[in-house]
């Protein structure tokens, strides 16, 4: 049989009892432990690198002001928060992340054309952030709009991706 077995003079029966030779078992054990060590080192490195956001900056909650401050059909930029607060014609709110879904440029609002037109690669979005003109592959991402009393708040901690505009995305004041 193998060299190891000859050297150890282990009887055949011993191996059939345990099912796996001791040498193989130990080798497997070491390999598994080495694998665990590599995974641990990887998790620690990636964990160390994870984004560290601070309160009050982009990534936190922004208080935009009273509902009445925003007339219907208006688009108000919040540069600090990197978003536009859109008030639709029927009085609902949308918070659009201004980062173009194509290659990340800051998309400005064109008041005369009533469109978002990306300067980098000419993607065009309508007031709801829906794509009017490629290359952008999907509408502008959304931030959560919360209405606390008559105050509008936008939570920029998490952006929501969407495949298309849908009226249920609009938040209406009650």
């Amino acid at each position, binding site marked *: 049989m193998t060299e190891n077995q000859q050297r150890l003079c282990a009887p055949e029966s011993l191996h059939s009892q345990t099912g796996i030779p001791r040498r193989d078992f130990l080798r497997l054990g070491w390999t598994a432990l080495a694998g665990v060590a590599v995974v641990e080192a990887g998790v620690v490195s990636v964990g160390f690198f994870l*984004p*560290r956001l601070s309160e009050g900056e982009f990534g936190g909650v922004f208080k935009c002001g009273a509902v009445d401050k925003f007339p219907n059909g208006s688009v108000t930029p919040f540069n600090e928060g990197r978003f536009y607060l859109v008030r639709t014609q029927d009085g609902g709110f949308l918070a659009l992340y201004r980062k173009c879904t*194509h290659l*990340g440029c*800051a998309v400005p609002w064109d008041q005369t054309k009533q469109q978002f037109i990306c300067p*980098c*690669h000419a993607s065009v979005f309508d007031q709801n952030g829906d794509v009017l003109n490629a290359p952008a592959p999907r509408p502008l991402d959304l931030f959560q709009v919360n209405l606390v009393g008559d105050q509008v708040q936008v939570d920029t901690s998490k952006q929501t991706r969407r495949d298309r505009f849908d009226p249920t995305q609009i938040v209406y004041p009650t």
Partner: protein
Amino acid sequence: MNPSNNSPLSIWQRVWRSAVREPFTGDRRSRLRLVMNNLVLHLHPSQVPARTLRFTYSFGLGGLAGLLVVILAATGMLLETAYTPSPDKAYTSILALSTRIWFGQFIRNLHHWSGNLMIIVVALHLLRVFFTGAFRAPREFNWLVGIALLLLTVMANFTGYLLPWDQLAYWAITVGSSIIVYVPFIGNGLSNVLLGGPEIGAATLLNFYALHISIIPMAMLALMSLHFWRVRKDGGLSLPRGVDEPPVSKDENVLTVADLVRPEAVWAMVALATLVVWAALVNAPLEALANPDASPNPAKAAWYFMGIQELLLHFHPLVGAIIIPTLGLLGLGALPYMDSDMNSVGIYFRSRRGRWLALFSAATGVLLTALYIVLDEYVIDFAGWFYGLPALVSNGILPLILLILGIIGYYEFVRRAFRATKCEGVLSVFVLVLAGFIVLTLVGVFFRGAGMQLMFPWEITPTH
């Protein structure tokens, strides 16, 4: 050779002796031993085949890349002392280089141009190795190490690009790093970790700084050591040979000191002098302070990513930014394992027919790519023609399949129409794709204006 045993050595002689290990007397044996006993010269064997010294074979490109690494390390370490990696101070510390720090602008220029030049030199080195068939056994693995070093060179340039924190840096890195988001499943997470958040900010600058000054250089140092070591272990440079010359296994050897070291030193000094003059005359670009609220128009990635950004204008992002570059890289890595024609090692472009095919394929690649770019601007509209299908299929998978079929078709065409060998066929496809990629890069850099519209270079007026 042996100084007289009677007279005692002075302390200076003893220090000198302890450093050089053996006195150099200039005879043949001493020259051989000098190479063996010297840390830097030891990268070379003590003798080399005379014909590998031909300048027009290697063009000294590998050594040139090594020289650039040394220049970059030296200037980089100086710049580290003058730079603060925070959004508040980064731009002013770059400005201070040109206003308050002696030779600051010059050192930054030297660093900037050496970094850019290094991408070109490393790419040319790769082409030289491919075109002379020098990547075949036993050098296949070193080819892979070389590709890893090329990627690290690009990464080093990419991370360094952000550090000046001007408009150019900010938006080029925005566009460049947005490509990562298109990696399936993990793209968003990967981008968040790299940037330290959803957008470029203070965390990004610090991450890139760490990558640029320690993580990437350390990885390069390790891989360069492996690369140089393997060059020697794999038998040095492949032997050059003329197109009709029979293979030679042995060649007359010459001494490394000084038949190899002398031309190397001359080439290094010519390159260094050229770079110094260039850096003294041409300033590295610096635009206005980065403004996250205002993207410039057009917003372009760094020039070495413009080929990919141009692909993005023609394909769905997943295909243009991820699948095609990945296939290209895998193909590049697989080349030495697909190709086993050892008969043409050392001959530029394999054979007489290979030379002609390389020229033909380059012309075909340039024409077809240019034609496609123009047609795609005005005629081709996959997304419109197949309106019902998702964009990934109509504008991604479908043209990708056509592209792959086209490449396979070109290979078969060359094999049949020109009776090319397998090896000449692979060479033809390589040149075709390479020419296409160069055209894409040139169009992206020079022929794209506001809104990435196709236009002539003299019509482009950058707006900010």
